[in-house]
Structures are given as structure tokens and as C-alpha cells.
């Protein structure tokens, strides 16, 4: 499973996106905000915990979070740089 696939699976399962499958998430799609996946601040802090748990990479605050959580690609790059 590639990094992107792992991230999509984590997002669908740990953020309870019951109505879509991991494959349906586009690598460039905006994760937050009304267009795209529509995740919110509670999803953001959950994602911080899951990234630390699954990849051992710590996102210290929401400024770093905004950089990391642009899309699946930006998140994958953020993690790979710090692993």
C-alpha cells in the first residue's frame, strides 16, 4: 500500500467518512474547507493524532497543520520529509 493509499484509508476510517471509499479521494483534492472533502477543525486535531500514531511524525500546531493538510499529496510530502 502506498503512502497516499494508507493516508486515504486512515482518513476514511478514523474520520468516519462512511459515505465514501478511500479510492474516491483525489490526491490533489482539498481536504479542508467547504469544497473538496469538507473536513473541519475537529478532523484536523484527529488527523494530527493519527499521523503521530501511524508515522511517528509530530505536527506541533495548527500553523504546521495548515501546511500539511492541504491535500493527500501535501500531507504525504510533509510526512516523508520528517520520517
Amino acid at each position, binding site marked *: 500500500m502506498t503512502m497516499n493509499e494508507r493516508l486515504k484509508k486512515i482518513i476514511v476510517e478514523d474520520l468516519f467518512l462512511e459515505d465514501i471509499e478511500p479510492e474516491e479521494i483525489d490526491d490533489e483534492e482539498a481536504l479542508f474547507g467547504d469544497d473538496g472533502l469538507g473536513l*473541519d477543525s475537529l478532523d484536523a486535531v484527529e488527523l494530527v493524532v493519527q499521523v503521530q500514531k501511524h508515522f511517528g511524525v509530530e505536527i506541533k500546531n495548527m500553523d504546521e497543520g495548515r501546511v500539511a493538510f492541504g491535500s493527500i499529496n501535501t500531507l504525504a510530502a510533509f510526512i516523508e520529509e520528517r520520517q
Partner: protein
Amino acid sequence: MIPIRPVAITGVDCLCAAGLNLSDCMDSLFSGRRNCSSPCLFSSTHPRPYPVFEIRDAIAGTNINDLINDRVNAREHNILRTSRLALAAARQALENAGLDRDNLKGKRVGVCMGTTVGSAMNNEAFYSHYREGNHPDMMPIKQFLNSNPAACISNDFQLSGPCQTVVNACSSGTDAIGVGASWIQSGLCDVVITGGADELCRVTYNGFISLMIVDSSPCRPFDVNRAGLNLGEGAAVLILESEKSKRARNKKARAYVCGYGTACDAYHLTAPKPDGDGLRRALADALAISGRTASDIAFVNAHGTGTPDNDRVESGVLHDMLPDVPFHSTKGYTGHTLGASGAIEAAFTVVCLEAEKTPANIGFTDPDPELPSSPQQHMESIKGDFAISESLAFGGNNSVLVIGKGALRT
């Protein structure tokens, strides 16, 4: 909303990290002293410790369990710390009101207490033993079933009357006082024991840290560098009394509950609505019910937790609705005591009205340009007969109390 006759507060007391009774707390507040430290009640694997406001006997360093034991007799050791805090505060407040068990007999006495942890079945030792497939000791469950804060107080004094434990997250203390006041105002009760209690616990410590709203240094309410809240523990109780009961023993009121407003943002589970819609309506209702306007208000004890969102929303609403009214947060002295905070802050508000001064907003040094209004940095004297104590809560509750000075002619 029908304006109400003010409800007399004839007794008040509280205990928290700032002091083991209300006068000790006010000494700490008026001398700008605070003592928070990393937790000693429990340990944690977080890489960095987060300061908390635990109750410890400041002098002897003994822990609350020893402190409370002398006030709460041995039989009560099978009840949880939150309810022991509630009982200690209730006994002190009744003493302050000059009421004892005999006075209460024959009276219609209600109990309304706010909590969060006090009603949660989250004993980690029990559960971790259970999930490993073993048979844990059932004592923690029995303790939980014996420890409903309002029921414990009602039981302890053998009272018969309405009894309610409010679990409205961080506004539970303010809401409990609002509900208790309506029982007096509607003639349901002669006396109401009301307030809030919450103990520090690992589960809420981990929960709030996971939400990334906890400051790793002592909290800085309304400051530009604020980075979150600190957790605390404590309890406060107010004794509310009907005019008839108060006059029968010619007891003077220390203060009055003049109005209570509450409204929801209906916006988000954990974030306050940016425009503060619920808080605005709760404030407007509280003022309308008390028959007061902004110009009557001497000061506001703000919720002021020190989180970026809460302080921004609150500053904006206070700027619009009470532009010339000074406000301060006392969370810098107590930490956020969750279900107890609304009651502890109401108790502080009573004393500030009596003492005609408000404490410094400890933790606030540099104004935040993004916030339209800033709190009073230093201790100030105040003039005026009315004050506001407000709470904003997870889930979008906003609750406001208007408290009036004791010397009011009703």
C-alpha cells in the same frame, strides 16, 4: 421573558487551587498569586507536562484527600473526589449562610449541582483490567454509582425536594445556579443548595490536550500569546433562599441572582460560533430578565479560558454589547475547573461586589490587536451594584448570570 424578582444568596463558599475557602481564594486573587504545577495526582506519557491547578493545602502540601477527610467523614470514602469536593463546599456554604441540618428540616430544600467528570464512568484502572480479560475489583463502579454530586448532597442532609445534576460541560456551574434560582423564584423551594464541582482527572487531561487547546505554560487569558487553557479542579456552592425564609430569620443577603440567560450557537461540537450569536442572546436575555441595561453593570467575570477561539469570540461580543464595562478572567488563578468554573466565578463575583474591587487578569500582559476589547490587566476598584458572570461551553451552550449587590432594596 418575564422579569423576575431577585433571588437572595445568603451563603457562599468555594475551594480550588487558589484557596481552601472563599476568603483564602480572594486573598490569592487580590494579591495576584497563583500556584499551578505539573500534575501530581496522576502521571502521563505526554512528552511535555501541562500545568494544572490542583487543590493542595498550600502550607502543608497535603493533598485534598487528607484535607477533605476532616470535613467529610470516613463513611464518605466510597464516593468519588468530585462529590467529596461538592460536599466540602456545600457544608462551608451552609455554615456561611448560618443554616444547619435542623434549620433545613421541614423546609423544601432543592439541590442543583453542575459537573462533568462527576457523572462519567471512566475509571481507567477498572477498565484496563477488564479489557485484558480479567475480573477487576467492582469498587470503582460502586463508588461511581454512589457519587452523583447533587444526590450526594441531598442524601447527606436527608433533604426532600427537587435534585438535579447538570452535565452541560463548561457552563454546568452557571446553568445549575440559573436552574436553582428558578426553583426559588417559582415558589418550588424555600432554600436551594446550588453550584458546581469537578476533580482533575487523567481522562479529561488527555482529552483536552488531544484537542490542542491546552497551554504548556500557565494560561494567558486574552493575551496575544495565549495558547490554550490550563485544567483545574474545585467546587463552589451558593445558598439561595426565598424572601420569606430569609426574613423569618432576619438574614441579610450577601448578593442576589437577578437574571439568568442561556442560548445555543447550534454551530459546532467543539468550536464557539465566530460571531458569538448564542452568547449575545444569552447576555440580552439575562439583562432583560434582571430589568437592567449595560450601564448598570460594574464588571464582567468573563469565561476567558485562554484559548485563541474562546477569548476572540468573547472579546468581540463584550465589545459590542458592553463596550464600556471592564471585564477580567479569573482562570489564571484557578485553571478551567469545567463543571465547577461557572459556580466558582459566581462566588468570586459576589465577593468582588462586596469588596468593590476586581482582581488583576493574571496571565494577561500584551493585548492582542485582533481582539477589539482587552481585559483589565490590574486590580481595579469598581462602583456599581450589578455584575455579570458568563460561561461558554463545548456543544455551543452560552450561559450568563446577572448578580446584584447584597444591599439591594428588593
